[in-house]
């Protein structure tokens, strides 16, 4: 099994041309193995390791101020997630179905989906930078400390229980980080690769870069692509896990319940910024957080 396919160009140079497509199966199987390992971990060990620290202390007196529905994702965020997910699935289907024997004219659909993904990601960057709490998705010091506590407890060592999560759990933040890296790699290389095919946007110019640069660009694009096979598999798995369903539901409807908020999140780390003005409204209306 070759990690990278090499070829000799007309000038006698050995150049990479793309990844070995058998890596697709490595990624798919790796994703499935992760699911199995995680499911076993959650079933037998996770509770002892992840039991949170004194919830009453952290949330004392807060419950009464929390509305019945706590807004988690704005409409803009949810629409971005939906459009990005559709574009990503379209990209994966158009990229990899032909590789597994389902032949169709995929190139045009692929770059259109790529353009949609690019626009949605640009929107997300601006939206998250200027309208959302930008730092809420990045791992912070408390996340690292809590991860260390969990790890020690998993090894049977003595460690204080980890705190409740902020708006996003650490694994969610790490997932976002990896997806961001893979996504920006795929988008960056993909936009240049559009210079190699007929589109209404660019004049074709396969000599924009040398063969070696193009080759590595195809390799990076391929690696990001097969990486997404595992990442999307894992994402869908978490989305349908029973204990995570409330988060999935929040990505559809935009809110979680007061009980879910108090059970899973630390109000000190994810404060509700705008408490309800009237008690009556808090029962039926969600509040941005």
């Amino acid at each position, binding site marked *: 099994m070759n990690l990278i396919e090499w*070829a000799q160009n007309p000038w006698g140079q050995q*150049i990479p041309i793309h990844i070995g497509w058998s890596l697709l199966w490595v990624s798919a199987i790796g994703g499935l193995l992760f699911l199995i390992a995680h499911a076993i971990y959650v079933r037998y060990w996770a509770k002892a390791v992840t039991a949170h620290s004194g919830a009453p202390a952290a949330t004392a007196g807060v419950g009464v101020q929390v509305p019945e529905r706590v807004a988690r994702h704005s409409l803009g965020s949810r629409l971005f997630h939906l459009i990005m997910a559709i574009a990503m699935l379209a990209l994966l289907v158009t990229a990899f179905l*032909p590789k597994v024997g389902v*032949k169709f004219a995929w*190139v045009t659909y692929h770059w259109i989906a790529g353009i949609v993904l690019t626009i949605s990601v640009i929107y997300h960057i601006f939206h998250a930078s200027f309208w959302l709490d930008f730092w809420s998705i990045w791992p912070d010091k408390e996340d690292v400390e809590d991860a260390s506590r969990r790890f020690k407890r998993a090894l049977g060592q003595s460690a204080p229980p980890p705190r409740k999560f902020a708006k996003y759990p650490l694994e969610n933040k790490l997932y976002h980080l990896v997806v961001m890296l893979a996504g920006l790699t795929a988008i960056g290389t993909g936009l240049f690769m559009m210079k*190699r095919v*007929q589109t209404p946007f660019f004049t074709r110019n*396969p000599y924009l870069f040398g063969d070696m640069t193009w080759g590595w660009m195809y390799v990076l694009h391929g690696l990001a692509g097969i990486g997404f096979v595992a990442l999307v598999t894992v994402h869908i798995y978490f989305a349908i896990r029973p204990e995570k369903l409330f988060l999935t539901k929040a990505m559809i409807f935009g809110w979680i319940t007061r009980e879910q908020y108090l059970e899973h999140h630390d109000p000190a780390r994810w404060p509700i910024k705008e408490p309800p003005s009237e008690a009556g409204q808090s029962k039926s209306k969600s509040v941005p957080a």
Partner: protein
Amino acid sequence: MAVIHDVIPAFELFQPTTVDDALALQSRHGAKAWVLAGGLDSFDWFKDRIKRPEVVIDLSQIKELRGIRAVGDGLEIGAMTTLTEVVRHPMVREKYSILPNAAEAAASPQIRNQGTIGGNVSQDARCWYYRGGWPCYRAGGNICYADTPTGLNREHAILDADRCVAVNPSDTAPALIALDAKMVIRTPKGERVVNAEDYFIGPAIDITRMTILQPGDLLTTIRIPSTWAGSQFYFEKARDRSVWDFALVNVAAAVVTSGNAIERIRLVVNGVAAHPVRLTAVEAAVQGKPRNAETAELAGQLAVRGAQPLQYNGYKVPLMRNLVKRAIRGVGAEEAA
């Protein structure tokens, strides 16, 4: 360019005598196996060292793949029937004269004696960058050397290019599509029959193949229905050298007229895309119209709509337009033009 060697690399040769044996060998050796018909395409690859199969399955000893038979509704031509046999067969000449005309336009007499109709329709692209062994799209790479500002693309595609701009070089393929032929394919799962026009695929669908044949598949028979028997046929091939060359553009038409009006027509061009192009829009436009210069002009204009010439093959647009016009005008058009 690839270095031409005197001898070809060693391979293990199998000469099965039945289709079942050939399929079993293909199944056993998988991607290592190369199916050899007349050898005109294959030996070029082997001698250039571009393709180095470990196993070659020579079909020449399979009698059931040879010969032309009259069946209830037309003809059956074995895939290993030589082009010369197709050219000389009396029934083919009498009822389906477009096919011998096309077959006779292929290559030279010596090559037609050896080359088979199955091989002619299934041959690979002749783009010299691809045949030279460079890592182009068709060879599994990520570039088309012909479709660059400096690429030599005089013989390449003006229609339906998708990254690769190679063209289908077959002369018999457009004639078979004009006759609404069916291709009988034996696969490991059984027999499959497809329309001739669906037998060929472009780079958008699969950039590394010219036909729908998958590894392990075998084209066994070409069936020609009687639907177009005795129609008015037109085949013309434009090429650089009249004695022996691949088509720059060729055109094949089967026409049934009522009075002077075109009642039914099938019109196909090749050499302009990676697959023979059936001009269904032109067929629809000329149906019911008189077979005259005015209709021919309309057909010619319509035929080249959407053509996207490359740096050096712009001449193919008027060439294709004029060949279509001549096909609509019919026999005698060559003299009249």
